[in-house]
């Protein structure tokens, strides 16, 4: 590079950097909003993964409602993207400075652990929402869905609906590049609900590939395939296509979440197999409820993100006013915010909710 060109290039680089810094500063400033807490009000900080996912937007809305009811001053912050721990760490520091009584957080990664420990030392009560941090003891308590129970409801419904027929099962998991608890819990829960031994407590795909299932009327089963979907529509579709090629007589599909289930259904539609295959999903969004009503999903196990957030606000408010600390649900190491199975029509032997009930409690908007 010629010498006299260097200043111009440096100038351009400086301009680009300034814009980039300005953009991120604007981003993080926009990410945290809220009122300053007066000394008499209980202050709570809600720190979410992002505000671009309707799952977390629901948490924000319900937390605000609970804060208004409890007379709590709520400050909401969120990362600019899934994985943005820096904004979350700043928000935690802000909560400590403000003198908040508690933090509700859906963590973006382990980088926030040090800041959360500082918050606990400063006397704040830390509640993790939706997923336990690693290690779980970083938070004072976690409010989450019992993912194993959610999977189990789907499995029980699948077994009951089969009525003794042979089950040819496609297991559509989340990842093949990392191991996350939600992937294992839902997969194993489904198998247990069907009465099949998962073969491991820490890994997927360890179950016996054929044998007998004991759920419902019982019968023989075959695991036709086990494929990752990345939890997205295209991944679900590719996985289902490969599974159908491997075994065209699949009649039961377990999907890790609704987008994967939607992709699987698209593959079934293209193959003309929608009447002979039942798809079981987990999530409980309002679009998912429509899919249950239309017959796309045989059942959908729902989550209550709004409940996680509003219960969190209630717990901190209670604690600040001298009440007792929340405790974990019996037999679990977290507080279970509950799950339910929504089906278009009742399934014998399984407790289910109607689509109308599901719509009353669903999260996100319909589209």
């Amino acid at each position, binding site marked *: 590079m010629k010498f006299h060109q260097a200043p111009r290039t440096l100038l351009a680089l400086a301009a680009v950097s300034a814009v980039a810094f300005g953009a991120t500063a604007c981003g993080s400033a926009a990410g945290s909003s809220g009122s300053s807490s007066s000394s008499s009000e209980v202050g709570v900080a809600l720190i979410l993964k992002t505000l671009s996912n309707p799952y977390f937007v629901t948490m924000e809305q319900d937390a605000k409602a609970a804060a208004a009811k409890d007379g709590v001053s709520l400050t909401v912050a969120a990362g600019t993207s899934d994985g943005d721990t820096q904004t979350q760490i700043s928000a935690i520091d802000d909560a400590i400075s403000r003198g908040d009584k508690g933090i509700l957080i859906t963590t973006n990664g382990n980088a926030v652990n040090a800041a959360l420990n500082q918050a606990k030392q400063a006397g704040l009560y830390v509640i993790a929402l939706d997923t336990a941090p690693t290690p779980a003891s970083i938070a004072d308590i976690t409010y989450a869905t019992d993912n194993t129970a959610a999977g189990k409801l789907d499995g029980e419904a699948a077994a009951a609906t089969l009525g003794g027929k042979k089950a040819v099962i496609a297991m559509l998991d989340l990842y093949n590049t990392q191991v996350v608890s939600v992937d294992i819990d839902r997969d194993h829960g489904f198998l247990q609900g069907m009465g099949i031994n998962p073969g491991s407590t820490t890994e997927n795909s360890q179950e016996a590939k054929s044998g007998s299932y004991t759920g419902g009327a019982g019968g023989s089963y075959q695991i036709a395939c086990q494929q990752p979907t*990345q939890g997205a529509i295209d991944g679900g579709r*590719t996985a289902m296509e*490969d599974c159908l090629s491997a075994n065209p007589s699949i009649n039961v599909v377990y999907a890790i979440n609704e987008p994967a289930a939607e992709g699987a259904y698209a593959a079934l539609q293209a193959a003309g197999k929608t009447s002979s295959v039942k798809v079981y999903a987990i999530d409980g969004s309002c679009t998912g409820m429509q899919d249950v009503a239309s017959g796309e999903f045989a059942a959908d196990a729902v989550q209550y993100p709004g409940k996680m957030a509003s219960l969190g606000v209630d717990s901190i408010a209670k604690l600040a006013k001298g009440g007792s600390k929340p405790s974990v649900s019996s037999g679990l190491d977290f507080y279970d915010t509950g799950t339910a199975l929504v089906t278009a029509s009742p399934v014998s032997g399984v407790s289910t909710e109607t689509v109308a009930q599901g719509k009353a409690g669903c999260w996100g908007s319909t589209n």
Partner: protein
Amino acid sequence: MTASAPSPVLEPAETVSDLSARRGHSPANRLQHLLHRRPALSPLAVLLIAVVIFSLVNARFYSAVNLSLVAQQSAVVGSLAVGQTLIVLTAGIDLSIGAIMVLASFLAANLVFTDNVSVPLALLAATVVAVAAQAVNGLLVTRVKLPPFIVTLGTFNVFTALTLIYAKGQTITLNTGSGLLWTGQSFLIGNFRVTYGVVLMVVLYLVVAYALRCTAWGRHLYATGDDPEAARLAGIDTKRVLLSAYLVAGLVIAVSAWILCGRVGGADPNSGLNANLESITAVVIGGTSLFGGRGSLVGSLLGALIVQVFDNGLALAGVDPNYQVLAVGVLVILAVSVDQWIRKVKA
């Protein structure tokens, strides 16, 4: 024999193999020269061997239904790889190509679904956004002279964030008759079910391959990637050629976005997240050199097919899905090693 050294060039009426024989090349050397002249041969060989092996493991692999599915599954990354090839040929790399595709596909779907814009206008808007995004990449590379890897690493984050902010996590499901989903509709050729998305991908390859091979622009692109200084001295406006590679890639991205809409039934901000790396993988396995200036476009199509064949074949073989990831990694290392070996060809 005369005392002078043998002529290093072809004598009249002599074939390349005669030349090789005269110069005492070993079979390995001759293979090296052959691959240097025809870079698409090694991925073609790998593809054929893979198809044979997977068919032996599970006869279902070879069925028309399954092979049609493999083609459909490769359509998005296969078409995206056209744009990536153009940029890699200039000795660059585009880490943001998938992120721009997802943004464009979401924009088109949202305009049709929420704002009731007509499908052609929505596609036009998506094209404008894709080309503009690539213009940002191209200008940062040519004017501000930043390395493409760093530029696209940054813009990848920018475009991913823009998509998340615009999408708010929603997925969009369009009516099955929508023009945006035309790429997902299919027809039968014999027993093979072909989607219009696959057809569009093939047309894209034909058009761009023609441009690369038979137009001055294509020649200039290869020259700029092979040796920018020599190209500049030969009178080629290398900055303009570089920028044009990015802009044409923008057009390609718009086509890929349309194919993605058809595959996903609308738009999903979480689908296609790995397309950035997958397109690079297809280009590398296809034999295009990361150092620029060498490679054939059809190689990228073969590369995309190879990855999908391995994914599908391993799934049908009932192998643990982690091995799919392992297999792709091994393929990439093999492809780059073969590329290095070919580069060492001596006259």
